[in-house]
């Protein structure tokens, strides 16, 4: 049975009519048309579909759209302001942490959520926060560098554990 739901995506309210079996990812990609959220494994393993529900990263492929009624959701499109990239996105460009780019939206959202909670993470904090995002290209080193780069500039340079 179809239901009317309201999702607040990147600050904008969207009214959708969905059946309960539509996942959040399908709603975001197919109904709202924001294609930055990727459909990877669609089984909750790879993290490509990561979005922020409130402040917290979740997997949109295994979350039902109807479960998010009235909730605030941030997708990768919500991080940049027009052509201006967010700090994390700029750091990814600087570090060359993007290769094929399929995992990148998810990784950037997980990293952004980490820095919000812990502005000065060390390498093991970053590894733990990004464990739910699989990347098959970069080998993760450049990604970790990018997240360190984007972390609070007033923080002391953390080069302990530089050898990953």
């Amino acid at each position: 049975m179809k239901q009317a739901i309201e999702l607040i995506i990147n600050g904008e309210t969207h009214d959708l009519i969905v059946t309960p079996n539509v996942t959040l990812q399908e709603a975001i990609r197919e109904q709202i048309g924001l294609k930055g959220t990727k459909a990877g494994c669609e089984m909750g393993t790879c993290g490509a579909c990561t979005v922020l529900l409130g402040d917290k990263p979740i997997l949109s492929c295994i979350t039902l759209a109807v479960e998010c009624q009235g909730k605030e959701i941030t997708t990768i499109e919500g991080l940049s302001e027009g052509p201006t990239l967010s700090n994390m996105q700029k750091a990814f460009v600087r570090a060359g942490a993007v290769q094929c780019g399929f995992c990148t939206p998810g990784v950037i959202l997980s990293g952004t959520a980490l820095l919000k909670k812990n502005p000065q993470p060390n390498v093991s904090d970053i590894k733990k926060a990004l464990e739910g995002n699989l990347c098959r290209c970069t080998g993760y080193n450049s990604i970790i560098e990018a997240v360190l780069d984007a972390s609070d500039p007033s923080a002391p340079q953390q080069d302990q554990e530089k050898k990953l």
Partner: protein
Amino acid sequence: MICWLEKISGGLLNSKTMKLSQFDHKTPTSKKEVVDLLITSGQDSAILAGGTDLIPNMKNGILMPKTLVSLKHLSAQKEHITKNGSLKLDAVSTLSQIAESPLIKEKAPSLAQAAFHVGGQQIRNRATLGGNLCQESRCLYLNQSHDFQFVEACYKRAGDCCYPFPDGGRICRAVFMSDMAPVLITLGARLVVLTSHGERQVDIADFYTGDGLKPMNLDPNELITSVLIPLESQKMQCRFIKATPRGGLEFAMVSIAVALTLDKRDKKCSKALIAVGSINTKPLRALEAEKKLTGSLLKPSNVLEVSKKAANEIKPLPHHGYSRGYLSQLVEVYIKRSLIDIIKAVDNKNGNQIVGKGVKP
């Protein structure tokens, strides 16, 4: 032959891979209402808490409920100490909440550790304690889309065979993979279950059946509402170690939970509980090893003996490509490591140094 081909092509044409089939979605606002809805919806209903286990299983076609009863309107009560000293956790608390709670870190550190090691960040933000305890058991054959397997369904999919254990009798040997369950077993936790005629409490040690087809002693119309950890367990030395192939985002190869009551001078062990998860159709206790440990001094030479004993008595099911021998070895090594870790912590507290002489942690 033609019939077989038709079956396959028909299967493929009909398969909507990775799309969920239709179901009803109910959103009750109280626990009582959840149970009432489960009763009226009958056998074909399932409880949706975080959905991190249920929804992949529905996509794989292992479960096909007609009605999902969502717990999204039940807000988690904050963990607290009850009048009789038990630590009470709400079953809808997310694993992130458990991993980060200062009270749980203080009173049941191994539980916070176990929660911290489940899945990835995104999973922990959605997955709940109750859901983790009631997750489906797993098997390399089962946790794939059936549409591409071109074989008859197995017992768990209501078929008539078992692929990993073809000669094993008519039982499902999928492995129960919860990390929280072995920890709660060592902490002697009790589950509060809401039924149609009121609440009942179950000792978590009696909660798992060991039958892959019905891993839990829980009727379809019952709901776990909270978990109680008794006062005496909160004073135990407890550890949790999870062996995974690559550190994060994995189900365990073996997960070990240990809880010891040590006497005042922290040397003699008066009570010991060792539970091993992800190794069989239910979490197993190492009873012989516990007996050996109880009443004896906690020292490295004893630890070696105890971990050998545990490896001998715990019978692993080879799962996900790991052999029996390898899993037994993991049990031995990880029990040894967790006990050595306790000795180290106790030594640090007392200012001694006995580990390191002849024992590699």
